[in-house]
């Protein structure tokens, strides 16, 4: 009767006992890692670098993508008029083009403005000063309307412009932006592949670390089995060790990426200033930060689970 009463009371206490076990094991596992700071740091450093690589690549591609988006917004058709075409021809053509559905805006760049701009960016002041006359033609900078957003329409419109008698050359800025975007997408895909490979490496690193830990505690595991510890009970500290390795690796990876961004911000700002623009680097957003931390913890836990499941089976109490 007493035994029955005791069993019932313990059944009601199970969730509390379970939670207490989890908390105790989590803290004990962290404490065990901190008692061996150097080996723990080495493992965490390897995991941190492994997680920082895809994290860093993600941030780089996000920044490059933002840059490309800015270029795409500014991408225009540049119509270089023939040297014989004068200001009146340029104005008439601009008026005609403004009536087209494919055109959002037309801006006339005079040869003087073009020369001044070229002088400012090229640094060939002396050479340009020696020219007998301005060799640059009138240029119409056309911002395509949403109607001409697709490549085929823009190509057709571009060909039409090229066929005009006043036109010498049509340059389509969006072409190289699109090529650049394709390269960015390729790099993004490479980052995903790299992340997958490094996730596998992370599983192996944590798995191997936990395997060594199991070997070091083989005798303890045997005795625990002898005194009635369940496999779940024996497994728990190792799983938490894997969890902490992964989480700490994630924290280190975030620190590395943020530190890298801070180091790059100043030179990037200097380059942007040279182009008379501003480019604040995009950092780790909260979802990415959470993904890196939880991904690290999850991979650490999984790596540990794989190692524990495989190696505990081989240990018998006698």
């Amino acid at each position: 009767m007493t035994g029955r009463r005791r069993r019932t009371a313990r059944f009601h206490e199970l969730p509390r006992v379970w939670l207490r076990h989890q908390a105790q094991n989590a803290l004990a596992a962290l404490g065990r890692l901190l008692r061996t700071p150097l080996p723990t740091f080495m493992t965490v450093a390897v995991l941190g670098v492994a997680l920082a690589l895809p994290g860093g690549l993600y941030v780089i591609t996000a920044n490059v993508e933002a840059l490309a988006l800015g270029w795409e917004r500014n991408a225009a058709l540049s119509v270089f008029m023939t040297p014989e075409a004068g200001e009146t021809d340029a104005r008439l053509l601009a008026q005609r083009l403004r009536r087209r559905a494919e055109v959002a805006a037309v801006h006339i760049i005079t040869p003087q403005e073009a020369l001044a701009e070229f002088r400012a960016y090229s640094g060939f002041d002396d050479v340009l000063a020696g020219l007998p006359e301005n060799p640059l033609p009138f240029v119409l900078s056309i911002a395509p309307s949403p109607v001409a957003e697709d490549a085929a329409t823009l190509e057709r419109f571009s060909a039409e412009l090229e066929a005009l008698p006043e036109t010498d050359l049509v340059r389509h800025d969006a072409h190289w932006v699109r090529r650049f975007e394709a390269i960015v997408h390729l790099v993004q895909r490479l980052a995903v592949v790299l992340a997958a490979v490094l996730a596998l490496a992370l599983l192996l690193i944590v798995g191997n670390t936990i395997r060594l830990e199991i070997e070091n505690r083989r005798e303890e595991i045997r005795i625990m089995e002898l005194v009635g510890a369940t496999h779940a009970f024996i497994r728990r500290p190792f799983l938490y060790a894997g969890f902490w390795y992964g989480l700490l690796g994630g924290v280190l990876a975030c620190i590395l990426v943020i530190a890298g961004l801070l180091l790059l911000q100043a030179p990037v700002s200097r380059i942007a200033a040279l182009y008379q623009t501003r480019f604040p680097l995009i950092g780790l957003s909260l979802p990415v930060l959470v993904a890196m931390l939880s991904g690290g913890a999850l991979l650490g836990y999984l790596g540990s689970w794989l190692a524990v499941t495989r190696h505990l089976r081989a240990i018998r109490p006698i």
Partner: protein
Amino acid sequence: MIRFSHVTKRYPARGDALRDVSFALAPGEMAFLTGHSGAGKSTVLKLIGLLERATRGQILVNRRDLGRLASRRIPYHRREVGMIFQDHRLLADRTVYDNVALPLVAAGLGPKEIGRRARAALDQVGLLRYEAARPVALSSGEQQRVGIARAIVGRPPLLLADEPTGNLDPDLSREIMDLFVRFNRVGVTLLIATHDIGLIRALRYRTLGLSEGRLVKDTARA
């Protein structure tokens, strides 16, 4: 408490360790298991503690058929069987208290209950003053008593001891046996594997004799 019915244990590499062994041990009984090295004494204890499974036959412990017990239930079975070993099996990097508390920690008891029970078990074996010491600081006899405290801390109804006095001098052996007799007097069932004929004769408890895996002697039947 324990019933062996035609139990055979065969190891692939070394053949039969036990052959058609049958005996029963009543609740609250104490018995010695004797025989030369390799006679099968340890195998009997391993089968009861479910460290091994029988090849043939049936083993009942507390009316539970061990052959039908699922692997996931084994830890719970072991909590009802206290095991004592010749080599103590203590964790060198833990204190005496931690070693004794281990079965209670594994069973998920609360810290207060663990503290109370572990200290009571250490008190029973006369080692409460050494609770903070490491096992290596204790003598062999004291280490064995720590092993006994660990075995009784969960209050199991059955204790198995495998050559518990094997490394001890006669005085210490007698001390350990006195502890077992005390436990038996409060209703604990004991099965002690030993080849210490002097102790067996002095204590006059039931003796099961094994030879080459066969039960060749049972003083209860005499």
